[in-house]
């Protein structure tokens, strides 16, 4: 019996020919990513060395990435001090993949990692962030871990006790209708399987709808795999992957493609005809509370957010800019745009997208996580309602338990900005 993609990656990273679902393995890590919570990882790292009588030393300075994105520029003295401590640690340990807030270097971790070619197909990537699942878009087994687990990785270079997960094959076929996007596919999938239906399992994405999808869209669907409880989402790497790594990420060294076996054994298969999909919306306060837009259009919103590790990429900003170009957003609505990286910000400027958005009435903020998790900019007032391209709508998520967050694609967000109510693209007049 053949192996799924994640089985093959875990076998390779654990020095074994083969692994079975349920085996416990200790794979070698190719990339270990943290953001500002590196402050906690550092604390736990030093704790491990306490009483060990050894000089605290990370296992490999080329395999650790630290990216400031959750609260940039620092929103408080506390964060500023944490960031200062992390910078000192980076210098002390010689960490090579460090991204401070600086020009093209800055951005959301889940954009910087692919953009800089740090993620390679067939490898194990861990991050102290649940949306580390994003990097499955490039054919890596990428998953979120806690800070103490990361401190252990910094010391040992392996992740302890990884149970080999079962894999759900998602077969997405057909062509997206106009104004329907990968975000709608993943929201639909989460609605189907529920927010815990894929707990402790992995989604492996197949089908012509995935084959024809650019890496930006694959990042969107893998990003949100965790919202169905999945340990990871993964796309078998193909020509698009190589194209992205070579031409966008600037990778020049060898790229090895690890693929699932033809006769791999899957937990089950979910078949989705994307050509039947309408724009999707996740209603508060759960990501699986999904409806087709027709069930909800006309609902008034106060704030619209376009950005995040889910939908802050150049394609996303272009879609939004094209919709609002030459028009004005509705009175009483705030439109906040957060490009996912410095490079995307600059390219969106060069192509005129940011100008179109700003002339329509948008606020263009600096790259970062922004209002997504309610700790920096764009908090909601009591009783307010947001429509957002981000990935979570839990109660209190945007900083106020007395507010609501609805999730959608950039196209729906932009169309709704023009009307002030949830609006299907093309019907915004």
């Amino acid at each position, binding site marked *: 019996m053949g192996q799924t993609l994640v089985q093959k990656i875990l076998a390779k990273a654990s020095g074994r020919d083969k692994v079975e679902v349920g085996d416990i393995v200790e794979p070698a890590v190719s990339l270990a990513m943290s953001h500002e919570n590196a402050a906690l990882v550092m604390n736990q790292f030093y704790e491990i060395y306490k009483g060990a009588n050894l000089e605290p030393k990370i296992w490999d300075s080329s395999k650790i990435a630290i990216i400031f994105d959750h609260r940039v520029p620092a929103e408080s003295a506390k964060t500023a001090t944490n960031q200062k401590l992390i910078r000192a640690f980076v210098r002390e340990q010689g960490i090579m993949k460090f991204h401070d807030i600086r020009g093209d270097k800055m951005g959301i971790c889940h954009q910087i990692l692919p953009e800089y070619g740090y993620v390679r197909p067939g490898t194990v990537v861990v*991050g102290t962030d649940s949306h580390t699942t994003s990097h499955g878009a490039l054919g890596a087994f990428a998953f979120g871990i806690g800070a103490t687990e990361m401190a252990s990785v910094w010391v040992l270079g392996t992740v302890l006790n990884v149970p080999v997960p079962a894999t759900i094959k998602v077969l997405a076929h057909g062509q997206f209708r106009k104004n329907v996007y990968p975000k709608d596919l993943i929201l639909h999938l989460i609605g189907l399987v529920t927010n815990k239906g894929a*707990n402790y399992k992995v989604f492996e994405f197949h089908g012509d709808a995935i084959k024809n999808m650019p890496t930006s869209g694959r990042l969107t669907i893998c990003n949100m795999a965790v919202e169905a409880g999945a340990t990871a989402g993964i796309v078998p790497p193909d020509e698009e992957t190589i194209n992205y790594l070579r031409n966008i990420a600037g990778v020049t060294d060898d790229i090895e493609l690890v693929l699932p076996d033809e006769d791999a054994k899957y937990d089950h298969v979910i078949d989705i005809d994307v050509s039947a999909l309408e724009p999707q919306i996740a209603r508060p306060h759960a990501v699986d509370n999904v409806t087709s837009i027709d069930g909800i259009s006309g609902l008034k919103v106060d704030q619209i957010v376009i950005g995040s590790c889910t939908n802050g990429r150049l394609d996303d900003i272009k879609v939004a800019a094209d919709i609002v170009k030459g028009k004005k957003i509705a009175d009483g609505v705030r439109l906040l745009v957060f490009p996912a990286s410095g490079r995307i910000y600059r390219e969106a400027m060069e192509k005129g997208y940011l100008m179109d958005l700003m002339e329509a009435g948008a606020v263009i903020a600096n790259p970062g996580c922004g209002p997504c998790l309610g700790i920096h900019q764009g908090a909601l007032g009591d009783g307010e309602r947001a429509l957002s391209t981000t990935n979570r709508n839990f109660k209190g998520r945007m900083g106020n338990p007395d507010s609501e967050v609805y999730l959608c694609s950039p196209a729906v967000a932009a169309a709704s900005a023009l009307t002030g109510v949830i609006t299907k693209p093309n019907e915004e007049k």
Partner: protein
Amino acid sequence: MAKVIYKFGDDISTDIIYPGRYMATVLPDETPQYAFDDIKELNKILTGSKVPEGSIIVAGKNFGTGSSREQAVSTLKGHELVIIAKSFARIFYQNSVNLGLRIIICPDIDAEPGDELEITDGKVINRTQHKEFEIIPHSKTRQKIIEAGGLIAYTRRRLLEKEV
């Protein structure tokens, strides 16, 4: 024997357990004050009059869903709570094992606030309602970390073995 202090349904997220706005606070010892900060009555119970160690929160499926933030575990560990849930989200589960928060997987658990529960090797016994529920044991590899006193001690041991 310990008392149930609060009962939750399914899908309690890490944003509920430890709101994102406190994430700049990272040191485990500083996190307990913010536990369930958006559920004022529960936060008050935990931070006000001292709740006895081992007090129990009962929950449904998928407790700890969402973010990887470890503060969601250290904040509960700081109050030395025991969490009994029908199931746990993956990262929260592993973080609990790593930090030594006592969590118990009990798919059929039925208990109300105020009930007295006894936790044995394989069962949760509800002494108030006179019912028993099976516990799903932790895997052997997780048990090893728990027995070592958490992941810090476990990794330290592995590090020293490597150096020898």
